[in-house]
């Protein structure tokens, strides 16, 4: 791996960044950093501006306010290719894999290794299989058979292949869009383990999620978004899980909600008959 700064050094710095589509302000005044070997967690409910934020970092949309610094240099991405060129790779929710194709073909899809020249130019299959197994092993995934269709892997394993692929192709910053959204408890744990693995390899990781219980164990830094604004950028030391959950749900709103739910309980027949409220 080349080009990775020392752990703890910032790779991406975001200063007061914002994005408006015409008169609609989707995101405003977001400030945070992504350090090498650390996980920055972006939390927020649906419509909070999470996807706008990662689209700016991934190069899908250009920001309209503030500054985006990569390795200390001011940048304004106009295409995902530009971001990728700086080692910022995004793993989207659909993972960009082809279910019926073998794991190794998926791993190298679009960046296949070849040998030979002219009409004899052909895929270097042994090398690709070997590298696939090696890279997955380095991520802690023990693959039985690189030939098995990737559709036969579990959702968590597929996610991990997508992460390993991004790492292999030179990612320094990994943007993971809701990697645990559709997974069960055990599978989510698996994915978070690989997120930690990528972090330990010295990558900066941006983890987008709306689940504070998934975010808290693995993250080093939290940025909370709500209605296009940042509620703050907190290092883990300044934030407990309880606080995080409360902030996510919007403090007062959650109290209101628990109040409503609590009042509803006695009305159910079984509760009413057994004990006094």
């Amino acid at each position, binding site marked *: 791996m080349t080009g990775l700064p020392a752990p703890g050094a910032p790779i991406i710095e975001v200063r007061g960044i914002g994005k408006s589509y015409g008169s609609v302000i989707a995101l405003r005044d977001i400030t945070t950093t992504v350090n090498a070997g650390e996980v920055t967690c972006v939390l927020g409910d649906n419509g909070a501006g999470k996807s706008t934020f990662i689209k700016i970092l991934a190069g899908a949309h250009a920001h309209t306010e503030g500054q985006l610094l990569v390795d200390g240099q001011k940048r304004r991405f106009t295409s995902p290719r530009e971001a990728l060129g700086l080692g910022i790779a995004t793993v*989207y929710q*659909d*993972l*960009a*894999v*082809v*279910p*019926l*194709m073998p794991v190794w*073909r998926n791993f*190298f*899809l*679009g*960046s*296949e290794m*070849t040998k030979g020249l002219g009409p004899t*130019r*052909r*895929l270097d*299959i*042994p090398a690709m*299989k*070997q590298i696939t*197994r*090696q*890279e997955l*092993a*380095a991520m*802690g*995934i*023990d*693959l*039985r*058979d690189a*030939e*098995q*269709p990737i*559709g*036969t*892997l*579990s959702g968590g*394993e597929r996610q991990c292949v997508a992460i390993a692929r991004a790492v292999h192709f030179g990612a320094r910053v990994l943007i993971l869009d809701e990697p645990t959204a559709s997974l069960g408890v055990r599978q989510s744990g698996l994915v978070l383990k690989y997120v930690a*693995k990528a972090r330990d390899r010295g990558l900066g990781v941006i983890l987008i999620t709306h689940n504070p219980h998934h975010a808290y164990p693995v993250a080093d830094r939290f940025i909370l978004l709500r209605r296009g604004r940042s509620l703050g950028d907190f290092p883990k030391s300044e934030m407990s899980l309880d606080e995080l959950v409360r902030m996510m749900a919007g403090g007062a709103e959650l109290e209101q909600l628990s109040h409503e739910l609590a009042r509803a309980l006695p009305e159910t027949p079984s509760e009413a008959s057994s004990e006094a409220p």
Partner: protein
Amino acid sequence: MTSAAQAPPSDPVPERDERLGEHARLAAVLRRPAVGALVAAAAIFVYFAVSTTAFALPSGASTWIFTSSSFAIMAVAVGLLMIGGEFDLSAGAMTGTTGLITGIMMTHYDVNVWVAVLTSLVAALAVGFVNGFLVMKTGLPSFIVTLGTFFVLRGLNLAVVKQVIHQVSVVDFQSAGGYQDGARVFGSFTRIDLGFLPWVDLPTTRLLTVYAATWWAIAFVVVATWVLQRTRAGNWIFAVGGAQQSARQVGVPVFRTKIGLFMTTAFAAWIVGMLNLFKTTTAQSTTGVGQEFVYIICAVVGGCLLTGGYGSAIGAALGALIYGMVGQGIVYAGWDSDWLYAFLGVMLLGAVMVNNWVKTQAERVR
């Protein structure tokens, strides 16, 4: 899945995992898309070889080998297209169009044979490009787009030809200048003496005639298999058919791949058009109409999924072999040849069900 979290990246990883037994290799062979077609082809060969006298004789086999070969060329191209997730219903009519273009240019305008041959190639590639371009730009299903081009070609094959030569077929082609030159490439044949086979008893039946179409078909299968399995383009074909959006996200040139597939199908239709023209020395306005479905059926029987992303070139060719053998076998057996269509329908349904089962097996966690 167990964890090997302690393994550093530099650790050598064995080429084969010890957890894969030999039965896994056998299962992998059985899971290949073409195996079902191979078994069916062998069974059909044995059946007709035993139940009719002419089928397995070299002289009798010449006919079905030729039919199978020209259908194999189309089935392989259509199979590639289907693996890439698209259909081409204009492929059949295009075999007629190319034959008519070259035939009319040579018989009515005395154009040089190679100019006439290349003109129909350019026309075919243009139609293929338009097919692909329209499918990709409009986002419409290729089934609809190529149904449109199919009817356009079918209409032009009749209307334009009638207008230009006042009849619906090219006649007297063998007397056109340059016919002999063209026939050397597209209409040639080799006679192979198979008198050593134990069941050949009469000297008149010992010769197997192998037409140019067979060599073209073999070349098509070899090149298509190479491309599919061993090149980047092949990887892209599987990817655009299996999950187009994902393929685009990882940088596969989807547009280029699909256009290339439609043009390959058009190229195959041109070859078949030329092979038919120079072998039969005639081209008719209705040539190829209705065969577009046969190509698709051949590819499906050979293990190509209707939904794309799975299949093989050799499978498609085996599908064509089955079609050719049954078509001729029914004649030798003295049945009404219209039974062929009923048989095709049954084969298609059977093959689709087998393919779906194989696909489920392939996706199942081992």
